[in-house]
């Protein structure tokens, strides 16, 4: 494959897409090249967004930022940190898990609908994305949303773009709402619970008014169940105190503050508990939180999976080593039975080419998806097969 094309303007992207349509040669879209997820794209040419870079609008007092799609996430986070603000959805950094290098871009964060442990409280990228510009597979650049916080004018294509993995359009610019950074954070650590007890503790915690912003379970000797609070320090202390009183039946928790708490949650966000790149296959499984323990038990018993839980049990990370299909049959059947979905995020190239990465949709839903995609990219030139 030749070096990626590196357009620096929407007009150039439009021309590249038009040419691809005319020549019927599909394009693979890459941002930082850090999220090698989904079926490998069968494409003649890669288009890099790195030439489309730079923050185009930042109004701290209005909590809004726009950036061109190839802008590095690290650049945006540094800029925001200067005003003690952040993208509240805590975007994952895939590099440790996938063994990729390069710099995540805000376009890739958007196209993959990134999220992190704070999802249970703050949502994912989709919940903070308020505007997009994108060049569709028709070689036309459209906009949706804008730079204001509340907007129901026309169909919400920003939501469609978030999590489209580049299959509807090449994002050229995105606008996010921001939130203030918390003054401090505190984590309660309970040792020795099993997964079921841990999920009991975590879902109980999320049913209280104490505004938990992270709830994860790390198996091990001893296992650790983590519950995070963020905010002003007096308030964090108060809420942690009240909750540990309520959860007295689960033991006496240790309390971690600031950096000690932060580094733990960064590791969870980036899936470090599963270890660096190995020969195993990694699945990201999203179910309702109370189903988490059952998923863990079944995968441990049937395919010797190593797992941990985030989102109070609603997100199961599982590493599976051994079965020729990477555990796909077991994982897919289990998830289909429970309701939810599983994504194959790390696997040898051959397996990724052979298996659908994303949970197969019900036929009626798949038909809707196909029609929408066809309306954006009738010639099928954008990341073909990535989500298929």
């Amino acid at each position, binding site marked *: 494959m030749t070096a990626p094309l590196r357009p620096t303007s929407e007009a150039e992207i439009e021309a590249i897409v038009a040419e691809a349509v005319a020549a019927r040669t599909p394009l693979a879209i890459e941002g930082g090249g850090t999220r090698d997820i989904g079926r490998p794209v069968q494409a003649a040419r890669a288009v890099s967004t790195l030439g489309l870079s730079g923050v185009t609008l930042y109004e701290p*007092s209005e909590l*809004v930022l726009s950036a061109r799609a190839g802008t590095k996430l690290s650049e945006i986070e540094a800029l925001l940190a200067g005003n*003690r603000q952040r993208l509240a959805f805590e975007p994952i950094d895939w590099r440790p898990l996938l063994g990729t290098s390069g710099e995540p871009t805000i376009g890739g964060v958007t196209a993959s609908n990134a999220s992190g442990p704070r*999802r249970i409280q703050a*949502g*994912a990228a989709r*919940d903070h994305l308020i505007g997009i510009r994108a060049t569709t597979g*028709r070689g036309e*650049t*459209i*906009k949706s949303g*804008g*730079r*204001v*916080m*509340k907007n*129901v*004018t*026309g*169909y*919400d*294509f920003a*939501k*469609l773009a*978030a*999590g*489209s993995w580049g299959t*509807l359009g090449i994002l050229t610019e995105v606008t996010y709402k921001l*939130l*203030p*950074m918390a*003054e401090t954070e505190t984590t309660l650590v309970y040792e020795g619970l099993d997964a079921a007890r841990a999920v009991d503790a975590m*879902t*109980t915690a999320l*049913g209280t*008014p104490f505004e938990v912003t992270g709830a994860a379970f790390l198996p091990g000797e001893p296992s650790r169940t983590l519950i995070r609070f963020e905010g*002003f320090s*007096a*308030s964090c202390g108060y809420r942690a105190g009240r909750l540990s009183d309520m959860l007295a039946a689960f033991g006496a928790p240790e309390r971690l503050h600031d950096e000690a708490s932060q580094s733990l949650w960064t590791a969870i966000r980036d899936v470090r508990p599963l270890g660096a790149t190995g020969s195993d296959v990694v699945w990201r499984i*999203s179910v*309702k*939180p*109370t189903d988490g323990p059952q998923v863990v038990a079944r995968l441990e018993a049937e395919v010797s999976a190593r797992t941990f839980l985030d*989102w109070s049990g*609603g997100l199961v990370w599982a590493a599976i080593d051994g079965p020729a299909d990477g555990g796909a049959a077991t994982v897919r059947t289990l998830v289909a039975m429970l*309701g*939810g*979905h599983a*994504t194959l995020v790390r696997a040898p190239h051959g397996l990724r080419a052979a298996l659908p990465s*994303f*949970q197969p*949709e019900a036929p*009626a*839903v798949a038909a*809707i*998806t196909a029609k*929408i995609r*066809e*309306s954006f990219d009738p010639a099928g030139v954008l990341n073909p097969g990535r*989500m298929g």
Partner: protein
Amino acid sequence: MSAILMPKPDQRVLDRRDAIIAGLAKLVPPAALITAEDERRAYETDALTAYRQLPLAVVLPSTTEEVAAVLAFLNAEGVKVVARGAGTSLAGGALPAEDAVVLGVSKMNRVLEVDTANRTIRVEAGVTNLGVTAAVQHLGFFYAPDPSSQLACTIAGNIGMNSGGAHCLKYGVTTNNVLGVKMVMMDGTIVEIGGEALDAAGLDLLGLIVGSEGQIGVVTEAVLRILPLAEGARPMLMGFQSAEACGACVAAIIASGIIPVAIEYMDRPAIRVCEAFAHAGYPLDVEALLIIEVEGSEEEIADLIDRITAIAAKFEPSTFKVSQSEAESAAIWKGRKSAFGAMGRIADYMCMDGTIPTGQLPRVLTGISEICAGYGLEVANIFHAGDGNLHPLVLFNANKPGELEKAEAAGADILKLCVEVGGCLTGEHGVGVEKRELMVHQFNRIDLDQQMRVKTALDPQWLLNPHKVFPLEGRPV
């Protein structure tokens, strides 16, 4: 009748009315089919009462399967369908057409399942917004989006419009609080999208459906996120002698890292009317009033109030009052939430719903005054100040010939101004029929064509609520 035109009804459909009704009668029980003219009248308008259209018939199915049968039949007959919740749309979103059948979900109003461990509730789409909270309040939970119409409006309509409310600053709007829907496509196909997990596989279809104004499918059930009630909440009132000082105060609070649950703004005319109605204790001698609400334990509330007080002091509020009791808090919110109703007692009004970058507030308020003065009309402004969602109420007298048209023209100018300063036509009420022709000010041809392509892909004959959202000119069908 006023400026917004409805296309000529399809004569072929009108001619077949009896056959269409006979077909519907085979699909739903007699009580679910309304055909008599006086009974259809109840459905001829929504909260945009300047527009009225008597529908061909009204069906009120009780199950998803009935909805599917009705849609499949009407699809085959080529008959238009307007989905309806409670008909409180302020944008004419639920306005029928003479050649359309209204499909109301009011009989589908059961709460199906409450799951506090997973913080979800599954309801039929005709449950009211407040009905969701009522079903979980005794368990210590609530449903966050809180449109002022929450006593009447349905989850179906909230999903149709992606509705918001005063407390969305902290908790988000409808789209951030819906996890799944059951929906019937125009051809009668039943689909389930999303569910109790936090995210769904594939494209974010839910994100497209929420806010699609009844143009993509008819929602029959929804899985919603419920949240634990805060330990306590307290509003405070702050009055200012200028919109500038008030706007700067809001910006300073947000820049300090505090996101209150709500920051609501009223100008002098709005304050007068709301105070006369609700006796909320609003100061009458200020140009601009903020209602700011904070949440938490007693200590947390006290701490936040201290912080906000210190920040606000720099902007010299002429009134500063923290609610001292439950009753006072309720009165403060009653005044705000009944603002539209209170205004309706003294005048007819057009309620605008643009959103602007919050920094543009003073400029836009000045612009709004000038525009309305230019038409010889009065205006009162109510504003979700934290997120820039502006509700100018353009007052007029419907009995005076020409005044409605003037109010509409003023409203259109106001919305164009919102777009000009970087904002949008509608923040939470939807485009409906009201702002359909204004869409060209926010979107270009390419943008609109792509939106309409998605409509065509999912409803090829354009039978679902077709006269809304997109300008009549330039449609593919």
